[in-house]
């Protein structure tokens, strides 16, 4: 019973974090066709900014998290302007640049902080006692925050003028021009939102996991797997697939003794199997851009 509850909580928590990461990746890909391999590097950067804010500057965790999310958005927009914008029509170049960016961020933090693991104090402390198990408030909080973030994104995309513009660009760039949408502008904003989501994921997990310059790699594999499983370009697919993968990885950790080193293999295995059996994923979108 205890294992089961723990499994569910860990699965939801990890799956929720994965979902936020994957949805940001799917968003910028769907809108601007940018395969952003630096996506989870933004998540790493955000975690480090929180760590620096708390341990070096002495900010409270909530403030450090807020600052981190804002700075990460800003950083991504600067990266877009400096590196992506001029090659945005060349998909391969965009991808190579994003890999280079990820390595750059990693090396910077390795140089400054070395390869150590750093901890961040939790925003909320204590446990909720359910008799059989105790759930820490920080996990509960993380869970709630993931949910709110996903809900907020859904509201943004479906109810606001900006959301309509973002979806218009994702569906038909040429026609988006015709209704007066500045596509480059929308790309830039979407990049900011996408990195902001990565930063939120960072803020959620930083107090739970450890902060480390290489922490972006394993989630990147998971995000790629989630996007493949969900169907390239589908945001709904990315969320559902990330939850599935989060649970699958939790299952491996809880059911196989000493099996946590295998968790990365789960995502890779799922990705390979999906590519072989159903390349379009759960909610595949057909990629044909019509012309007039």
């Amino acid at each position, binding site marked *: 019973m205890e294992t089961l509850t723990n499994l569910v909580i860990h699965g939801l928590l990890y799956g929720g974090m994965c979902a936020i990461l994957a949805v940001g990746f799917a968003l910028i890909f769907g809108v601007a066709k940018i395969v952003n391999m630096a996506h989870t590097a933004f998540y790493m950067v955000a975690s480090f900014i929180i760590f620096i804010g708390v341990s070096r500057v002495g900010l409270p965790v909530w403030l450090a998290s807020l600052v981190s999310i804002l700075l990460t958005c800003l950083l991504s927009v600067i990266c877009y302007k400096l590196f992506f914008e*001029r090659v945005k*029509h*060349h998909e391969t170049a965009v991808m190579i640049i994003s890999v280079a960016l990820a390595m750059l961020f990693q090396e910077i933090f390795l140089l400054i902080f070395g390869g150590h693991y750093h901890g961040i104090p939790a925003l909320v402390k204590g446990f909720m006692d359910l008799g059989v198990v105790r759930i820490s408030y920080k996990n509960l909080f993380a869970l709630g925050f993931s949910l709110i973030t996903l809900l907020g994104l859904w509201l943004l995309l479906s109810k606001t003028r900006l959301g*309509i513009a973002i*979806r218009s660009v994702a569906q038909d760039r040429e*026609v988006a*021009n*015709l*209704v*007066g949408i500045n596509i480059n502008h929308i790309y830039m904003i979407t990049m900011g939102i996408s990195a902001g989501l990565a930063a939120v994921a960072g803020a959620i997990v930083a107090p739970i996991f450890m902060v480390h310059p290489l922490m972006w790699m394993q989630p990147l594999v998971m995000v790629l797997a989630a996007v493949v499983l969900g169907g390239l370009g589908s945001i709904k697919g990315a969320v559902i697939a990330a939850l599935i993968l989060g649970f699958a990885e939790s299952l491996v950790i809880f059911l196989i003794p000493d099996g946590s080193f295998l968790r990365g293999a789960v995502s890779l295995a799922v990705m390979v199997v999906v590519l072989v059996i159903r390349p379009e994923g759960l909610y595949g979108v057909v990629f044909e851009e019509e012309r007039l």
Partner: protein
Amino acid sequence: MYLEVRNLTVLYDRAMVLNNVSLNVEKGEAVGLVGPNGAGKSTMMRAITGLVQWEKDSLKGTTKGKITIEGSVVFNGEELINVPAPRIAQRGLILCPERGRPFREMTVKENLEAGAYLVKDKRVIKDSLDKVYYLFPRLKERIDQVSGTLSGGERTMLSIGRALMSQAKLLLIDEPSTGLAPLVKQDLFTRIKDVHGLGITILLVEQDISFAFDLAPRNYVLSQGKMITQGSPEELLADESIRRTYPGL
């Protein structure tokens, strides 16, 4: 002159799709542009609304071919040839593309909202929406339907509706009747006449010249990238060169 296209030339790599074409539209007029398949009609519409320039820009840094565009497009006294497409839309020069091209995963309502993207005034949006519902009651019935599942005629209506939401002053409509049953065509053209009746200037591209001639007192004939002639339906029907381009007449 409301819209004045002068010596417009478009090349895709070395293929000349438009060869020095010119065209005028007066304010309040309904003008037809007819011509056989591949004449360059759509390319002309895309060049006027800035899409050819946009496509050209989006080839930068890629290994795909090269697009050349030359000439002048003046709307309301303003040169637009180097103005980006979204700004041209802002001026009220709006294109209804071939097959309507609604945003397929969005509902009818959301498509109309996308059309009103540049409109800030809530009252103007509401008025335009009422106008669209009045002209196209079918759209109102299907307001929450995902537009990818609309019929061909409904898609065209939606794209005209979307253009009205964008506060179109000059509406370019590219082959609205393609693939529609005769009765549906007839109904659609009555609607387009209603739109014209609202005071909106129309430039209509058609392959089916009977519809173009019915709506527009003045028509241009484009063939193989060249503007062959222009005139009233009677003049054109009497013209030998038209019979050669349109053997079926």
